[in-house]
Each structure stands twice: as structure tokens, then as C-alpha cells.
């Protein structure tokens, strides 16, 4: 097991290297010029050239890539072309809001979606099952920003229960933190709940047909015990897999959610950087997201052993 974990962690290195090369190359060939954005409307072509030179953007691809990789190996993601702040500082400023949003969404989604899926499977073909599946279809179909606007309109503007926008750090208190995240988490969680609920239902339906479930029933086990102790544990592997895959969904959804609720997170940082062509920031954030994704997948793989003792690494 330990050897497996070490192997997997070492395997992230080539993955990250490929991501780094890919991201750098993509940005190099993408249209757009930060020097022209900085120079503004009044600038002459000479001004733009001087700014480009001062930013080092006029140097060859390999030189720039080599320097960037060298700095990354030293833990330095570079300095933002526009703000002049270290990329690591900018990422640190944004980590807490995004992680808070993702964790709260994840908790909310799993808490709601798994029981929903279990109940839908248990009550297959009934009105409850159809309602759950109807909700799932809606969750997939309605865009995050529409849900966000509706929630803000009802709960912030009309009822005045929650703030429209913003983020308050956890260090300022649990309620202020939570207050700002409830609506974004619900908005972002919609798709995720739908995804997990559908997979849970499908997997549970399959498991509930198994012989050992019939045996448990024959032994007189209660319905709750059958569903949550016997069936759900055996259905857990695909559900956990989907939760892991869904992290990518969350990262993508966070971009929109953070914009709608004006949360200063990594998603907005990425979009702002892309629109301005702030290359060091784009590269840093994408590397971070890739790293998170690799680590989440590793964690999911390790969690399989908890739910299914037959799995050994």
C-alpha cells in the first residue's frame, strides 16, 4: 500500500510536466498580447514593443519555458504581469474562498444526493423515484448561473435572508462565512447532486438485485439496515468514483458561481487572467488545478480499499 502511494505520488511528476508543457505551449500560440493590453489605447507600436521587452515576452519560446520551469522547481510561480504580485500570493489570496465553496458544495451534495439516490432505488417506479429523477434532469439542464440568479433574487433581494454577494473569511466567524456561501453552494451543487443521485440510484438498483440482499431480508434485517448497511456500502465504489470525477465539474462550475456571487476565488482569478493574457497567473492556476485533480484521484483510489476490502494495491 505504502509503495503504491509513493509510486502514485511520483507518477504525478511526469503528469505535471506534461501539463506544464501543454499549458505553456498553448498560451504561447494563443492570440493576445499582454503588452498591448497594458499599453492601452494611446500607445504607439514602439511603446508596446518596449513593454513587451521589459516583460521578457520578446524572448524565444525555449528560453522562456526553461526559465519558467527552473523557477517552478524552486517553488516560484513567477510574478503577475499586471499586478506585479507573486502568483503564489495571488493564489493564496484566492484559495480559501474556492476551497470553502467546493467543500461546502461537496458536503451539501453528498448529504442530499446519496439519500436521494438510495430512496429512489428503493421506491423504484413510484412517484418519489420519478420526482428524484425529474430533479436530476433539472439539475443537469438548468445552468448554474440561472440557478444562482434565481436564488439571489428570492433569498437575498426578496426575502433579505442572505447577502447577494461577497465572501467573508472563516476567521471572521462561522455564520458570516456560511452566510455568504449558502446560496453559491446550492447553485453550484445542483449539477453535482443530480449526477451523484443518478449514479447512486443506478448502482443501488443493481445491488438490490443481488442474492445477499435477499438473504439479508430473509434473515429479518430491517429496510434501513438493508439499504444503508448492506447495499450502500457495496454500491459505494462507483459513487465515490463519480464524486471524484465531479471535482473537475466543481472547478469548472466555480468559475461561473464565483462570478455570479462575486466571490474572490480561483475561478475568477483564472478568467480575469485569461482575459488579460496574464500568462504567469494562468500557468500557475492551471498547474494548481491539475495537481488538485491528480491528488483527488489518488485519494479516491485509496478510498476504494475502505469500501471494498477485496481491493488491494
Amino acid at each position, binding site marked *: 500500500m505504502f509503495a503504491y502511494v509513493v509510486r502514485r505520488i511520483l507518477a504525478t511528476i511526469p503528469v505535471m510536466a506534461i501539463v506544464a508543457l501543454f499549458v505553456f505551449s498553448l498560451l504561447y500560440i494563443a492570440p493576445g498580447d499582454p503588452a498591448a493590453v497594458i499599453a492601452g489605447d*494611446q500607445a504607439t*507600436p514602439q511603446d508596446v514593443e518596449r*513593454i513587451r521587452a521589459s516583460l521578457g515576452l520578446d524572448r524565444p519560446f525555449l528560453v522562456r519555458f526553461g526559465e519558467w520551469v527552473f523557477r517552478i522547481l524552486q517553488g516560484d510561480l513567477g510574478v503577475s504581469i499586471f*499586478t506585479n504580485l507573486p502568483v503564489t500570493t495571488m493564489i493564496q489570496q484566492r484559495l480559501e474562498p474556492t476551497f470553502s465553496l467546493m467543500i461546502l458544495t461537496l458536503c451539501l451534495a453528498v448529504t442530499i444526493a446519496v439519500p436521494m439516490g438510495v430512496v429512489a432505488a428503493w421506491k423504484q417506479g413510484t412517484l418519489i423515484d420519478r420526482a428524484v429523477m425529474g430533479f436530476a434532469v433539472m439539475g443537469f439542464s438548468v445552468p448554474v448561473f440561472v440557478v444562482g440568479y434565481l436564488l439571489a433574487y428570492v433569498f437575498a433581494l426578496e426575502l433579505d435572508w442572505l447577502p447577494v454577494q*461577497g465572501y*467573508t473569511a472563516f476567521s471572521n466567524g462561522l455564520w458570516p462565512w456560511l452566510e455568504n456561501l449558502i446560496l453559491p453552494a446550492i447553485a453550484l451543487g445542483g449539477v453535482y447532486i443530480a449526477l451523484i443521485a443518478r449514479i447512486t440510484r443506478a448502482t443501488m438498483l443493481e445491488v438490490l438485485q443481488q442474492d445477499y440482499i435477499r438473504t439479508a431480508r430473509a434473515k429479518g434485517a430491517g429496510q434501513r439496515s438493508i439499504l444503508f448497511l448492506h447495499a450502500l456500502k457495496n454500491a459505494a465504489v462507483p459513487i465515490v468514483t463519480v464524486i471524484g470525477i465531479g471535482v473537475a465539474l466543481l472547478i469548472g462550475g466555480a468559475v461561473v458561481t464565483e462570478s455570479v456571487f462575486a466571490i474572490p476565488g480561483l475561478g475568477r482569478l483564472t478568467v*480575469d487572467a485569461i482575459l488579460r493574457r496574464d500568462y504567469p497567473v494562468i500557468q500557475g492556476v492551471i498547474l494548481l488545478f491539475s495537481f488538485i485533480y491528480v491528488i483527488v484521484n489518488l485519494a479516491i483510489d485509496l478510498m476504494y480499499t475502505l469500501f471494498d476490502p477485496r481491493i488491494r494495491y
Partner: protein
Amino acid sequence: MHRRSLLQGAALALAASRLAAPYLALAQGNARTLRFVPQGNLATLDPVWSTTTIARNHGLLVYDTLFGLGRDFQAKPQMAQAHEVSADGLTHTITLRPELYFHDGEQVRARDCIASIVRWSKRDVLGQRLAALLQEMRAPADDRLEIVLKQPWPGLPWALGKPSANICAIMPERIAATDPFTQITDPVGSGPFRFRRAEWVPGSLAAYERHVHYVPRDEPADFLAGGKAVNFDRIEWRVMPDPATAAAALQANEVDWWETPLADLLPVLRRSDEIAVEVVNTAGALGMLRFNHLHPPFDNPAIRRAVLPVIDQRAFMQAALGEDQALWTVPAGVFTPGTPLANEAGLEVLTGPRDPEAAKRALAAAGYRNQKVVILAPSDFPTLNALTEVAADALRRIGMNVDLQAMDWGTLVQRRAKKEPPEQGGWNAFCTTWEGLDVAVPGSHQPLRGNGPEGWIGWATSPKREALREAWFAAPDQAAEKRIAEEMQMLVWEEAPFIPLGLLRPPQAYRSSLTDLVTGGPPLFWGVKRG
């Protein structure tokens, strides 16, 4: 643990955390804090290095200027206590007010001003003019500087006080020594507000606190001149990329002032008694269709001129800002309507009946051979995109072979800098807006210039317009300036380096509790108070 006790515990924890969080009350209810939603993200802190409007707006908070423009667009002493010009017009002596301090507590000295002017003069178009005319700058005393010119330039105070980018921001000598093509890192100025760098989260929050040592002039506020009396201890710029969110935040009293409300949302905001929707930036922005003079078909002045009869400024303004005529001004000539040099010379080319058929005939006579016309459209800038769509439609209606290419602004600014032919990644035309204060006078009116490949995007060449610009710099009085402006406008109808599309004056929205906003141009944070 029982469910009930768990819920009770959770409720207590939430209540306790609320009690332990005075921050919330501070953030949402502090009457001494003004919460402002700017037009975009403050990404750079150097108003000399960057020409973005938002960096300029930040600069006006943090930095002071030697002169400031009044509502009448005339330069008046600001940091300067006195300004004397020698009889030959060559030496400007500026005496500083005695109570000027930087945010780090140091007194502002003449050599700080000189270093700041030198840095500015390498980036700004009027600064470059000063550099060309400059004989010498010296500081005979800490509170006095002398600018000696090779030839008289009455417009020097205007240049030093103009609010359009790049502003001549006065900073400490040690900071002003930074290469003008490198961004400064220490935002120390002597303006009425001090930037809270430690709180800065680019893309989300920029905070300013009152500069406690700032002494405003003992005069009423007069746009960028007069007394900059501050009535708030703290200003927060809260960046909100989503217009619907900003509108909702304003309605919910989570912010006080929104600089750029979307035209579509104005009816909603206007329905609220607690929100005022007013034009604050009365100078507005002049829309224009800019041609590329390097490549066919718009390298031919007759073809550029042929477009004039199909330009309906009203249609452009309606597309950009809707039907409310309080939000735009037509007809608009070459100079910002409402400013001293705006005039009506030859304006009938845009005000007479629109005649696409005449335009078609003129186009054919000019030798247009159905060449492709590549127009760049910034899809992420709703106002510019609307102007571009109308322009493309107008050109199509007179039979031009339009290729409208949509892209984001970041791509557009790179693309438009390309001098290659359109088929090799270049372009033929695009629409943009210029701040009204920029295009109010020939000196800073870049689209008006005719300095060819050295000039602004589009690279128009016109020795006549350059000569008139030079004449404007030497004009002895406003009557002479006005005559030159009229000549320049007539020349624009003849050479058509660009076509004005109307003056946009988008409104701003703010809580009705705010009073005494200083109108005229960019959002200013002195004078304004909470009623």
C-alpha cells in the same frame, strides 16, 4: 449525541460566531465607508505606466497633480499655490502649497515634482510634447520649481492637470526614478486617499483610507480643481464582473455606488426610490469608427469619405445605450460635445439625410472593387460590440464585402496592432470609444493625429493635421484654438481618418443617500457624502 442537542449546539455556535463577528457590521453598515463598484478590475497601480481608465481613476485617489481642471475645463492650481509665466512665455515658475505631504509622512518637494514630470513625459502624449519643448527643469527651492521651455506653450498647465491617461501623478522622487516602462511597486502619493496595499485582492477588493495629513484647498470642489474635501474614512472598490450581481448588491444596500450599470438593468434600478441613476461623467466617451490607412480599401481617402453618408449617429447610440437621449449626444463632431473646442464646422456631413445610395455611388466612383473589409468586434464589451455591429451593417448596406470577426478584447488589442494586410492577420476597421476629456483638445486627440506609422493604431498620415496640431500648441488664446479646431474638423471630413459615432454618456447608479457627487468626468471621491 441526540439530534435535538446537536441542533441546539449548532444554533448556539452560529449565534456566538455572529456575536464574535463585528466585521460584518463594519463591512455592511459603516457609514464612514463608501463601497464602490468600479468599471473593472484594478490590475495595476501605476497611472503613468498603464493607460487604463481604472488605473487613472485609482491614480486620482492616491496622487495629487500640480494643476487640476475645473468644470470649465480650464487648468487651475491644485498642488501649486502660485503659477507665474515669464514675459517671454518660456519660464513657468510653480510654487508649491506648504502643507503637502506624501502618505509616508515626507513633505512634497520640488524635486519630487520634477522627477514625476520627467517620468510622465516619457509615456504621455502631452508629456512627450513637453519633453520635446523642454530646455530645463530646476528646483531653486524645495517649494519652487521652474520649467524652462524652448518655445512658449500656454497649454502646459492643462497638460500637467489633465485627468485623461496618463495623468501627471506626483510621487516621491525615489519612486518616480523608476523606469517609465516598468511598473512602480510602492503606491505612495500625496492625494486625499492612501492605498491599502496589504488589503488589495486584485479582481476583488481595493481599499483606500483617508490621508490624514491631506489638507484640501480652502475652496469648494470644482471637478479636479478646488478643495478635495473628504467625507469618508475609507473607500472600498469591490470588483463585480457580473452586472446582475452588482445591480442586486446595490438594491440590497451591499454597495453604495456602481460606476457602469448595464443599460438593460437601468429600468429596474430606476424603479427603486433608494437608488439614483444619473450621468456623473458628463464628458462621456466619443464613439468612433477607425480605419486602417495602410491597406485597401481604406487606404483610399475617397473610400473612407464615401462611408460618411451612411453613418447614422443616432442608430449607433441607440444600439449602445438605448432610447434614452439623456444618455447620449448627437450630433458629435471631432471634439467632445460640450467642451470649449467642440464646433459645428462641416457637421452637416453627419446631420443631413442619410443616403446609402449616394454612398454606393461614391464608393463606386472611388474605385472600390469588392475587397474584403475585416472589422474587429470585441464580443466581451457590450457597448463596443453594439457600435461595431451597427458599423458592419452600415458598410454592408452600401455594398461593402464585410467580414465581421468576433473576438475578446485581449485578442483585439493585439490584432489591431498588426500592420500586416488583413489576409495575413491584419484588419481594416474597428469601433472604439475615447474618453471625452482625451478628445476635447487636439493635443491629446490621438485619432486626429497624422503621424503615420509612428502614430496611433490605424496609422493615418496627414501633414496638414500635424501642422494644425502644432499651431494649436502655440495658439495664444481660446479664440485661436477654436479656429484651429474648426479647421481640423473640416479636414477630418475631407480625409476621414475616423468617423465620430456620437458621445456616449452612460449613467452611474448610486444609493440616494449619497449627495454632492462631483460630476464632470471620472468617479471622484471627494465632495461626496452620505446624507
